[in-house]
């Protein structure tokens, strides 16, 4: 039973990866299209009639047919890519949930499961954020990153379902790890925005001339503000993660802070993002310097999860590998 469910879970994940791959290509094509702006508009109109299928077609046709909404909701590739991302995400979530059902607990108790869930949350945050701001142009970055992470996780980190060791049997597993993943999701978006911000900054001074799509994206200034807002949310979650981790460590290991490698890196990440927040308020540090900090911070998050888990010694030896 457990094994059957676990294999269904894997099947869902593989399907999600296939669709993410197509979405990634579409997102990239969209960016390529934007580099050559003139013919796009025409193709959107023509393509709209032929390329749409399924339930979303109705919605979109309605909006394009209505005279007031003559502006399409974004180029054709972008809409298709985003729709595919949502489909893949649903499969992704189903995969994660099945894994949890198979194990009879939350699906984030080892590296494979954590990658599964954290990437689902990254995409979830990416989708949810669109309600607030159209950030679909980050799709190539986000879907590419998640695809890569899932690929590595399912080939290198995969472990069979095993029961939880006593130290992990705690409500804090649910809270601490979930909030950490949420924080990671926001930091990932923040880093993506910061990358675009840096490119935009370079283009503004006459570099990065070949990246024509940048002209269709928000200005560096606006990107910086968006990144800031996303990152402070991530920072709050991260602060909470740090504190929840300390409380849990106190229960499970008998001390709330012991400079274990994982604790050290969580602290380093927290300090980098605290630095980021101050950088934005410091003359001479706004702009590309603070963007660089945001990217370094997310780099440290990824490092903390991969390199620290796999190669560093410490109490957090729960990768299951």
């Amino acid at each position: 039973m457990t094994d059957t469910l676990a294999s269904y879970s894997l099947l869902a994940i593989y399907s999600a990866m296939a669709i993410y791959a197509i979405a990634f290509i579409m997102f990239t094509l969209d960016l390529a299209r934007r580099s050559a702006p003139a013919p796009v508009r025409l193709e959107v109109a023509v393509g709209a009639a032929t390329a749409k299928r399924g339930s979303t077609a109705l919605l979109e046709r309605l909006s394009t047919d209505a005279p007031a909404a003559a502006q399409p909701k974004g180029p054709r590739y972008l809409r298709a890519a985003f729709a595919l991302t949502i489909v893949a995400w649903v499969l992704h979530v189903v995969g994660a949930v099945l894994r949890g059902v198979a194990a009879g607990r939350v699906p984030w108790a080892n590296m494979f499961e954590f990658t599964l869930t954290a990437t689902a949350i990254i995409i979830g945050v990416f989708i949810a954020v669109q309600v607030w701001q159209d950030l679909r142009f980050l799709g190539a970055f986000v879907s590419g990153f998640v695809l890569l992470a899932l690929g590595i996780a399912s080939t290198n980190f995969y472990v069979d379902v095993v029961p939880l060791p006593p130290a992990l049997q705690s409500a804090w597993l649910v809270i601490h790890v979930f909030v950490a993943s949420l924080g990671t999701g926001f930091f990932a978006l923040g880093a993506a925005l910061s990358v675009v911000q840096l490119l935009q900054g370079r283009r503004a001074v006459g570099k990065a001339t070949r990246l024509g799509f940048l002209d269709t994206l928000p200005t560096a200034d606006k990107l910086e503000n968006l990144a800031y807002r996303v990152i402070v949310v991530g920072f709050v979650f991260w602060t909470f993660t740090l504190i929840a981790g300390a409380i849990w460590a106190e229960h499970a290991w008998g001390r709330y802070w012991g400079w274990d490698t994982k604790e050290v890196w969580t602290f380093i990440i927290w300090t980098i993002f605290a630095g980021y927040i101050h950088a934005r308020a410091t003359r001479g540090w706004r702009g590309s310097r603070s963007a660089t900090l945001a990217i370094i911070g997310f780099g440290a998050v990824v490092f903390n999860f991969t390199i620290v888990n796999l190669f560093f010694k410490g109490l957090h030896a729960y990768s299951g590998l």
Partner: protein
Amino acid sequence: MASSRPSKDTASNDAEAPDSTRPQGHFDAPETIVQPKLDFVGYLRFFWRQLTSMRTALLLLLLLALAAIPGSLVPQVSSDPNGVVQYKANNPTLAPVLESLGVFSTYSSVWFSAIYLLLFVSLIGCVIPRTKHHWDALRARPPKTPARLSRLEGFTTRETTMDAATAIASARTLLRRLGYRTEVYASASSAPDSVSAERGYLRETGNLVFHTALIGVLITVGVGGGFGYTGQRVVVEGYAFNNSLASYDSFNPGRFFSDGALEPYSIALDSFTPVYEQKNLNALGQPIDYTAAVTTTLRGQKPHKDVIKVNSPLEIGGTQVYLLGNGYAPVVTVKDPNGTVVFSQPTACLPQNANLTSICVIKLPDGLDKQLGMLGFFYPTSVAQTDGTLASNYPDLLNPILSLNMYTGDLGLDNGVGTNAYSLNTDSLTEVAGLKADTPAIRLGVGDSAQLPGGLGTIELTAIPRFVSLDVHHDPAQVWVLVFAILVVAGLVTSLFIPRRRVWVKVVTGKAGVLTLEYAGLARGDDPALAAAVEEIAERHSQQPLA
């Protein structure tokens, strides 16, 4: 974009930086640093200014992040002393350099401490003037209404049929209900014609709470470490331990620890029950639960039954008692040739792997004709390997075997130097049972007995109780660390997500006496929702005039 547009702050009584994207009450180093007079006080003041500037705080934060890295790359004395020994053996050239830099104790090293202490001095130097500034701001009136609202954020107008006085009064009521502090101003005319409103002082309050609570965390962590203690003790089923210095196997007091901090109590281990996975073939033998049933006795009170589990420590006498390890403690009974019992007690064996193959060291300095040392392996579920050696393939007691090598000679226990109970130095001993001796290693199941080599007597494996290793912690400030940590989060959320904004409503008399209401706002800090908020106020005010 509200926060990227340089806005005009017309409130002349406000001494803040002109750029509204900058945080409230935030002090930056002046753009051009005036060369200080080179006298001592001038120099100090200059230094203090630099230290408490935002830029210094930023650099110190980044430096702290960098400085924390080495300690994660190299094992630390505090968390992994054996790792340090091993690292030094493996890196004979690098280790002394790292040692002299204090890298093996990074987080208590001079340089690491210097960075965070400087950071906190900077923080204090920052928080104090900001608190004063905020205190003044809390009692100041909302600023005068700017002459031209049309240049501000979310500017919008509505025509109205209300008379000016009613419009002003109802705007004031509405804004108050929305949590604004209000003040009515008159421009050229003598009658009041505008309301100035400000809200979100909590943002700065939150920021100050956040930064102050960080200082609180640092102080309480220090106090707890100074006055607390931690101790470790192995307890075998059927035995008890008392919370006194003498009964700990190892003990780490804080700097200001005194014996009086040890509250007298005892904990007896009645039983220890592990549960191992039996169904899932991928995880056969993996522990899924540990339960230690104990009887605790506080001085002068009745004994009390309790349970300690991983993730659920026992609270007793101002300490927490954690269940951190467990294993087997076989009871070996040794008799001399006359049949007199000279030794009968459990020996905790150190587990070596997941199936609890364990190393046992038993020392008998007295009672027999010769001093006898035993170095053994204990296999809870023993299986014979093809080469004749034993191994354990399950952690529970299914087929236990204790295999003992024996040595005679001076065990070195009489010279008064403390020796490690868990190791036996066999260099100067004679092996009398084992691979190198005539007699093979002695293998015992439960209840088995055997002759000791050389007619020394007999040995029996009497019983196999389990042991647990308990960690006892006393940290008088732990609760306060938590309180400050919660304040950190609360302050952070408040300061990041409560918008601080000003809103003005103004009555303008147009041609033909038609009254127009003007509305506008000013963001202070990052405030993407300001324009929408102004619009909503205008809408509500013009539609349902409030009394």
